[in-house]
């Protein structure tokens, strides 16, 4: 039986249209030009491909194209947003305080901690059991020297949304910039800079059927939001991300944005229906299931725990049929379980049995039904041998 892929929040397969569009930029006899080589046609065609991709990104985000800085990943975009902005602000006496949230991706948390080591001050907002921050708490953390607020649009483990437009409204009278990590939102929800009110926004192509190794930091170009570059070299990307652009990757990113825009209207509702079918199927199976993150969510992620069984044992049971992310302590890098679920106050039994189901363009009803059947069978078997299950079997 082929492995069913339910880990689209980790990465997505490349869209064939995107692959086809990228191939001419990896050929031996053409498409190899350096976009900075303005003196000949090879360079000019590469430069124009990069600019076309910039417009494709901008069109999806409904934002000016000159705001898009191509990077090597969302992690790099996030680092440039946080460290680039904080270093600039601290140098110019424009604040040294960052506000973020306990459930952010490690790229955000680690970049904030690095800024802290460099002299910034950090406030990390807690979340409630549903995974949401309180706007009142955000307001109370705002200080005159707050330079940046960094919050994700969609949580990568639970799918829970932060109300970014409301955050932007709360910041309207304040000089702090708003960075939005939109990595998990592109292609699943409308991500429009004007509606969000973001000053900076990060994304990564491989999360929406584009290639790995390319991302974007969009930053407000008018008035130009200033960043301190993290690398030094040529003047590419306005000098803010120097280094020869990876034309084939950037072309792929642009096409993936175009495809995401085309699919958005139908994919959002389709993924939500599939996710609801998955959750309902598991709830109806009569096994203990806990949904982690009850707040408004993106349509493609469901974080579920199966209290009474250990996540590692469950993964060993389902892993031959389903490619899925387990969030239990033993499989997480920290060894202490997901920092996101811990911040939400999820208890030990649920923490150790948490799985992230994430759906994508290739997911079908049959995949979801198979996942329900594989999980129900596995959970039942493990509960039958668990001291944590109510009403355990007794042998003679």
């Amino acid at each position, binding site marked *: 039986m082929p492995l069913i892929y339910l880990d689209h929040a980790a990465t997505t397969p490349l869209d064939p249209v995107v692959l086809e569009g990228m191939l001419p930029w990896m050929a031996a006899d053409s498409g190899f030009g350096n976009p900075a080589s303005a003196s000949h046609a090879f360079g000019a065609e590469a430069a124009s491909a990069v600019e076309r991709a910039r417009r494709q990104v901008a069109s999806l985000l409904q934002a000016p194209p000159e705001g898009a800085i191509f990077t090597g990943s969302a992690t790099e975009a996030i680092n440039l947003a946080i460290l680039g902005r904080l270093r600039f602000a601290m140098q110019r006496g424009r604040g040294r305080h960052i506000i973020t949230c306990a459930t952010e991706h490690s790229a955000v948390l680690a970049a904030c901690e690095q800024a802290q080591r460099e002299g910034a001050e950090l406030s990390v907002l807690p979340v409630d059991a549903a995974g949401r921050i309180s706007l009142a708490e955000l307001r109370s953390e705002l200080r005159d020297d707050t330079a940046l607020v960094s919050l994700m649009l969609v949580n990568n483990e639970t799918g829970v949304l932060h109300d970014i437009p409301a955050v932007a409204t709360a910041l309207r009278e304040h000089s702090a910039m708003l960075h939005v990590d939109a990595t998990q939102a592109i292609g699943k929800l409308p991500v429009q800079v004007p509606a969000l009110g973001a000053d900076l926004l990060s994304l990564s192509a491989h999360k929406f059927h584009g290639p790995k190794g390319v991302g974007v930091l969009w930053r407000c170009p008018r008035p130009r939001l200033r960043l301190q570059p993290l690398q030094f070299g040529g003047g590419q990307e306005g000098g803010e991300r120097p280094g020869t652009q990876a034309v084939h990757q950037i072309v792929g990113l642009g096409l993936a944005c175009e495809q995401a825009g085309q699919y958005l209207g139908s994919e959002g509702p389709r993924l939500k229906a599939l996710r609801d079918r998955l959750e309902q199927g598991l709830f109806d199976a009569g096994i203990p299931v806990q949904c982690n993150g009850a707040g408004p969510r993106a349509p493609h992620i469901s974080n579920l725990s199966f209290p009474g069984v250990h996540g*590692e044992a469950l993964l060993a049971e389902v892993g031959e049929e389903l490619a899925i992310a387990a969030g239990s302590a033993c499989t997480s890098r920290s060894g202490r379980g997901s920092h996101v679920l811990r911040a939400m106050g999820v208890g030990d039994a649920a923490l150790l049995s948490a799985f992230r189901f994430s759906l994508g363009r290739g997911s079908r009803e049959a995949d979801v039904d198979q996942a329900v059947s594989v999980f129900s069978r596995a959970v039942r078997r493990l509960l039958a041998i668990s001291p944590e299950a109510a009403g355990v079997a*007794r042998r003679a």
Partner: protein
Amino acid sequence: MPDYSAAVLDHFRRATGAGLLDPGQPRFGTATVGTVKSGVKVVFQLGLSADGRVDRVGWLAFGCPSTIACCSWFAEALPGCDVATAEALLHDQVMQALAVARDVRARVLVVEDAALAALRMADQESERTR
């Protein structure tokens, strides 16, 4: 998925002896060791025959595949052993028999502790009834 030895996977799937014993039987021992928070919790039970040999084993386990496999291996290896042989077996054979990965050995020790405590309880019970 983490790498498990073939023996761990085999015992994890077979789960020989899973379930609880009837506590009303004579020469019965039971022990619960570990916590959900620590990632391993094991209930281990066994009974001794009138001539002092393990004649029944039961267990329940919350834990990783190696934990469950270890319970199953004990359930196959212990029956027929007298107390001294059972103690020796509990002490040093399971890690090798199952080729347990080094980083999960602490969890296997929890199963050993539970089995040993159940064995001692059953042994004391049997002394009392002798």
